[in-house]
């Protein structure tokens, strides 16, 4: 069973971060929610492993501090 990679795995993290923010350029909240969802769905399909997705979700639930 594959495990969620939790060590840094991207050579250019600032580029990826910039792409994620840039995807929402000039979007209202509704459109942003939808684009995030589309991204998650396509990445989940690419990962193709329910166990990895579950681990990522567990990590999110554990880590999120709630509304800031």
């Amino acid at each position, binding site marked *: 069973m594959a495990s969620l990679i939790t060590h840094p795995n991207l050579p250019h993290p600032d580029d990826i971060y910039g792409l994620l923010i840039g995807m929402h350029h000039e979007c209202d909240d509704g459109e942003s*929610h*939808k684009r995030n*969802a*589309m991204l998650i769905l*396509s990445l989940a399909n690419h990962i193709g492993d329910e166990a990895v997705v579950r681990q990522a979700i567990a990590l999110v639930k554990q880590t999120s501090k709630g509304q800031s």
Partner: protein
Amino acid sequence: MPRSDFSEIPRYKSFPVVPTVTSGAHHPVVIVGGGPVGLTAALDLGQRGHEVVLLNQFDFIPGGSKAICFAKRTLDIWNRLGVAQLMIEKGVVWNVGKVFRGDRKEPIFEFDMLAVKDQEMPGFINLQQYYAEEYLLQAIDALPNVTIRWGHEVCAIDPDKRQLTVETDQGDYTMSADWILACDGSKSPVRNMMNLDFAGRVFEDNFLIADVKFQVERPSERWFWFDPPWGGASALLHKQPDNVWRLDFQLGWDIDREAAIKPENVAPYVEGMIGTETPYEEEWYSVYTFQCRRMERFVHDHVVFVGDSAHLVSPFGARGCNGGVADADNLVWKLDAVLKGAAGPELIESYNDEAITMADENILNSTRSTDFMTPKSTVSKAFRDAVLDLAEDQEFARPFVNSGRLSTAISFPQSPLCTADRDIWEKGIPPGSPIIDAPLRNSWLLQNLDGHWALLAGRPIDNSPLPVVVLDHHMARERYDLSNGGAYLIRPDQYVAARWKHFDLKDLGETAWQA
């Protein structure tokens, strides 16, 4: 106590009210409720030779198409009982479902309900519920040991004494039974009289059923729309016999339900879907909401809840009536064994386990479908719309599209009646799953199973204490992975109890059959 007033209910066919009877009679089995679930249980028990009394509060088969989609598993069960051919001849056979979005002509998702071909029964038929009830009643009519009491309404129950008080137009009477099957529907009077729980969720949305008659040639397929161009959040089109079409429209939560079924308010939806050129007439209009609920337990000593009385789901998925027929099928062979003294009453507890597993899977699927169709939050709506946007062009997103996951037979691998595999199997059908039909040389596999325990094998088995069905067709042997010997033990309800790659008669000692 006066009988309830059923005068508002449309009637398909009336029957003479059965006169009241003398108090104090005792029966092995009393079935409360004469819908498809109660009738299936009565027919199955009757064919096994038991004396059955069925109490029907109505003296008629209600009109209104109601449940219209009967799944392959239900047809397999009804075929065993000898009534499926009539249903299929009258019904509209279909296997394919298509999902559309907006005014886009090409579907965004398609599915096939008969994924495994070469089986006797089709994936689905559509048939008005009253026809299904009529055919079941015709078959019951041939059984002198099954009595239908039309116009007999249960008004009190004493579960400890297993006693019912029954109201008729001529007064009431009492009766007792070894077993009472509550097949009395979603509002189950028996459940209410016993003050039993029925927990779950209500979904805040209204749907309009417009069953209308018109003459147009269209394929026999289930068509579903998200964001249909004529308005509303979703819509469904399904063909029934007699040129009746089931049109179903999602209306939203804050609506005037009485106004919604007025013909002038239904018309824009119907005309939006079928066009203004096609003349149509009203068959049955109804607005419904739905809930997903189940009882905590289905077996309460000698009172057993079967079908909608025990569990409720949304209609998207056709899991209500089909789930109820599956319950009846699961229960009856066990009750047969208990009534004949071949098993103790604890066997009925396995109905509780297995039927709850089935109900939970139906509720899970139904809840997921309704969450997709009626998103409850900004984010769940964003995910739903994301799927629909992606599905137009991206193949990977299409399997996420959920317009109802339609009823299929449900497995219960954890059931205590299953014997775990001793061998490594890569194919075939595991214990706790229903078997799949397959062609034999001169018949269909399921035709050789008559509702009793049996063995399936690739070649004859000497001295078997059970009937052996030899898979004499390569397709059947491949489907069961029996090309190199071995055997399957099949339960009376056509589920796998155990299987062996190298079978010895002694192996039966470890199974639920022996127990």
